[in-house]
């Protein structure tokens, strides 16, 4: 008996935080979620699995993607032709709103409905598999759903399909559960979804987040994929297989001898040539420099103008390395702010007064009305970045101050 456990396909959802993506990469990126999902379904067909479990967030209902729906119809039909059942529990992004239910997926697809639903399959081998789970009726499920899962049945295999997060005790919107509760059910396998980083919560029986099949932002780095689970000596053993079409990467490199942008460009090119990837990789690069850059040059880095220019002029190298740089930061030794004509204490007082969240918020003002900007603004890293950049900027200005007098 073998099956595939995948989750969080997030079909047709956009990649976030891309500003300078070249067109050559764009189409690959746009297709990436589909490419990744196709690998899952292809694997199901080639390995002739007994069934496929999809633990929610196949698509984002809010995004109303036609492509995602059409894709699912097509893929489910492929599996239908091969007589491979698909069992789905919808999650917080594809919650089971009652719209469009009149057009059903092919017959091989089972959507687990209300809590406490169990679908029992009889495999060709004669084994029986009971899959219990539920679909989110709306965006949030705040109650612990585990109690609604039935106790282990007489089926040969009992599997829990659950889209949710471990309970944290507060603000739990996504079917909060406790590991101990899951283990107490004595199921053979818990197929989890929702958390995009794959992780094994328990070795045996496996309680497992499959992670998403394709990372969609720089926060979702590394190889993504799904699990092929097979029975071995009365136990279910998951084995990971990669699916991601595009990789995200956060890298820090040290360029000791770089002192200016020209040298940085050369060093970067050299680095690219030395680090060719097998799969298209979107890299957010942090460059550590031994000696600080000139403030003006640093400002060019900070504004992103330099990277933008570099990407335009070095596309050949990027293509060859199968990589694109989505962000470039320079990390250098902090410079002390000294303004000879004004006491240090005044600068510090001024900084404390300005870099204060209420003031920042007031200054940001109307821009907070823009959802995406507000989202960025609210991130805790934002205020740190703002302060750092302001210090860099001021340092640059202090350099100018020296020239001013006689």
């Amino acid at each position, binding site marked *: 008996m073998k099956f595939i456990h995948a989750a969080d396909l997030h079909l047709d959802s956009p990649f976030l935080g891309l500003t300078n993506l070249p067109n050559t990469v764009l189409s690959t990126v746009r297709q990436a979620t589909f490419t990744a999902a196709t690998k899952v379904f292809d694997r199901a067909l080639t390995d002739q699995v007994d069934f496929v479990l999809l633990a929610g967030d196949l698509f984002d209902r809010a995004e*109303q993607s036609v492509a995602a729906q*059409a894709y699912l119809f097509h893929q489910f039909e492929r599996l239908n032709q091969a007589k491979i059942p698909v069992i789905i529990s919808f999650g917080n992004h594809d919650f089971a709103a009652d719209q469009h239910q009149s057009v059903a997926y092919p017959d091989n697809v089972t959507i687990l409905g209300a809590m406490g639903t169990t679908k029992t399959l009889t495999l060709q081998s004669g084994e029986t598999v009971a899959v219990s789970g539920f679909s989110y009726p709306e965006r949030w499920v705040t109650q612990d759903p585990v109690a609604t899962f039935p106790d282990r049945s007489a089926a040969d295999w009992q599997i829990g399909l659950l889209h949710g997060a471990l309970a944290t005790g507060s603000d739990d919107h996504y079917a909060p559960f406790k590991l101990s509760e899951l283990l107490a059910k004595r199921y053979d396998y818990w197929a989890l979804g929702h958390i995009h980083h794959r992780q094994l919560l328990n070795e045996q029986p496996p309680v497992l987040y499959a992670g998403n099949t394709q990372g969609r932002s720089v926060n979702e780095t590394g190889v993504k994929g799904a699990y092929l689970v097979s029975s071995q000596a009365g136990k279910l053993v998951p084995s990971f297989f990669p699916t991601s079409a595009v990789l995200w990467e956060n890298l820090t490199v040290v360029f000791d001898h770089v002192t200016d942008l020209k040298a940085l460009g050369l060093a970067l090119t050299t680095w690219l040539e030395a680090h060719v990837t097998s799969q298209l990789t979107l890299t957010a690069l942090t460059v550590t420099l031994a000696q600080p850059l000139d403030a003006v040059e640093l400002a060019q880095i900070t504004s992103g103008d330099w990277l933008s220019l570099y990407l335009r002029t070095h596309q050949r190298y990027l293509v060859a390395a199968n990589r694109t740089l989505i962000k470039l930061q320079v990390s250098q030794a902090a410079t002390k702010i000294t303004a000879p*004509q004004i006491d240090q204490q*005044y600068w510090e007082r001024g*900084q404390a007064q300005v870099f204060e969240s209420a003031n920042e918020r007031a200054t940001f003002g109307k821009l907070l009305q823009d959802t995406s900007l507000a989202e960025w603004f609210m991130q805790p890293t934002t205020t740190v970045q703002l302060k750092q950049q302001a210090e860099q*900027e001021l340092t640059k200005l202090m350099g100018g101050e020296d020239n001013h*007098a006689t």
Partner: protein
Amino acid sequence: MQLKRLTIYGYGKFHDRTFDLTPGLNVLVGPNEAGKSTITQFITAILFGFPTKKHPELRYEPLDGSQFGGEMVLCQAGVDYLVRRVDGPKGGKVTLTNLTTDSPLPPENLNRLLAPVDEQLFSQVYSINEPRLSEVFAASKQVMVERLRHVGAVGSDYWLQQAAQQEKAAEALYKPLGRNPRLNQQLREHAELSAKLAKANAAYDTYWSLLQERQSLLQRQKQQRVKLDQQRQVSEQLAHLASLWPTFDQWQRLQKTTVQPTSGFGQTDLTELERLTGQVKAATTGNATLQHSLEKAQVQADLPANFQQYVTVATRADPLLAQLPQQRQLVTAHEQLRQTQQGLQQRMAVIEQQVANADGTMPRSFPLSVAHDVTRWQAELVKATQKRRRLQQELNQLNEQFRQVQPTSRKRTNPLADKQVGWLAAGLIILVGAMLLPAAPFKLAGALLGMAIGYYGVFIVDSATPASRQLQGITDDIRDTQAQLREGGQRIDQLTSQLDEIGSTYGLDNLPVEQWDAAQAAIHEWDQLTEQLETVTDQLTTGTDQQMAFQQSVGTLFPDLIHRPTAAVLDELTAIDQTRHQLSTRDDELTSLMNQLKQSQTALQAAERDQQVFLQTRNVRSPQAFYERYEANREFHNQQVQQMALAHQLGTAAITQLQHYQSQTSLQTAVQAAQTELQGAQQALDASTSQLATIAGQLDHLTASGTQSTLRQKLANLEAQMQVNAQSWLVHQLVSQWIKATLAAASGDRLPQILQRASVFYGKLTSNRYTEISLTESDLRVRLATGEWRQVSQLSRGTAEQLDLAVKLAFAVVMNERVQMPLVIDDGLVNFDAQRRQAAIQVLIDLSDQLQILLLTADEPAIRSVSGNIIRLMD
């Protein structure tokens, strides 16, 4: 900074003047128009530039035409600089020289030397005159702070500039109300993209509804296919039936038109008829042969012409022959009747001659009563006539008597003689006229009347002539007689008219009454004759009819005799009859022939009768009709066979189905309808199919367009860019704020010092009437020694000016740590009373060890006690 020397090339009223200045207090004394304000303006102009030519009154160009401008030696941080400014563009041409090193400096360095003091600050704080003192009353903390910030930190101008540049850079990225900055554009683009995406998202609903539509269409298509198949079968079935229709039609017609066959017209019947016909034919042939033989025999036997004819019709002719005697009798009787008729007619003609009226009509006979009346009336008439005659005689006698008695009366009667002639004449006329009347009685009556009249005229009239009593008696008798006569006449007239009436009623007008009896008898006879004549005529007619009928019967048998007279016919027949008799008694060939012929005739008749019976029992008139019926019968059988064959060909099922249709047309209509429905079903299916194709196309389009994904990715990218820009913008903004906050922090510390100093100065200036100055957000206020607070607006002009002076002095003193700038006070104390002016001068003297002060004044006495550099302008 300390001013050491002013050299004026040409400025206002001055030319080629030099003023040496010392540190501390310098007093420049001079009356009005001595040039105090000119010097103040000169200092400002050299340091900060000449006003533009738009304001010539502020330029103080020299009146005598010497070179415009001058120079100034100033000491800054222990270094002497020479600033020379002459007429030139942009505030004048500046030459800057470091006198310590004797090196020229770029003219721009002048501003740096003076920084942070610029013209504005200099004129607001350091250059003090009366109008300026009074204009600062509006001072608020904000203004104060700004001014403080301006000079609060050395180099603050740079930082202010940087802050402004940061703001500018920020504005290049985003302005809350802007359109063109990058982030504004991106926000707009974001809105547009979002709208586009929302529009593209509409495709989502379309997609689902298309899927739904496709699903229902597929369902419908399936149903339509089934229906189409059914309909096709129906249509084909009907078409098959339609092709069978001609056969069916034939079958149906056979069934419908066939009459039930009648028995008696079969093959056996035909044989029987033919046998009978053969018999008839054989008999007829035999007959003909016999007749031929008979004809020959007859010729030999010299038989009457018509006998041969007779032989053929003997059976029918015999009854006629039997009638012969009777016929002869009839002829005789006929002749007798004719004679009787003639006799009657003659008699009637006689009577008619006697009695008939002129127009030939016969009078009619009276009934009995009328006859009695007539007899009676005639008798009365006779009597009346007799009586009249008697009376006439009596009258005549009387008349005679009268004539005798009355001879004289002649004269008188002469006129009467004329009358007599008249009467006579009238009587004659009537007499004659009566003779013209047709009937005798009339004539008689008329003649009598005429005579009577004549008589009357001659005798009675005359007798009427009375002459005496005798005469009178006679006259009366005459009159009496005349009266009786008249009475009798009237009776006669009455009777006559009654008789006339009867006469005219019965057509006896032409006969005199006397002949009426005789006439009546004649009329009666005539009537009887008429009846007899009718009887005879009837008998004659009957006889004639009988003769005619006989003759006709004869005519049919013997065509030769048709137009022959009766007598001749009878003779012929008699001859035939005699011949027959003769022959019946002879036993020869002819007889036998005739017998044979008779027998043959009988046989023929029997045969014919048999045939007739045969035909009658079958209710047909002739063999021809029989044959027709026979043929019909045979045809029927043929048709039955044919029908069975057709029924077999059609099959019972088809027949049952076909029988549902009235006619080929209705079947055709059904076929048509079925085909139409088939076409309809096909069209519906086609429509569904094409709709499905359309939907598939639309779905493909929706699926393949990728618009949504592209837009979403674009939006995500745009948002990333927006975040970068927002970050830059925010950094710029925050940096600007940071600089300003830092400057504010640096300068803000000095404000309390300035206020403290100002309070001290103000106390001194006002002899401690006011002890404290306080700066609020919006205004400046002062505190009396009594503890009360006063707004600036509540102060007197002088006191307010003293407040301003105190603040400015405090500012200059406190800022002196960083900015050394000479104070130039141009007649600023004019509104001060003497005591306060002294106090003010004392404060200035006190400050002169810290500040260089140039006091320009016209108030000589006030400065008497002042020790320091006193320059008299009027010297």
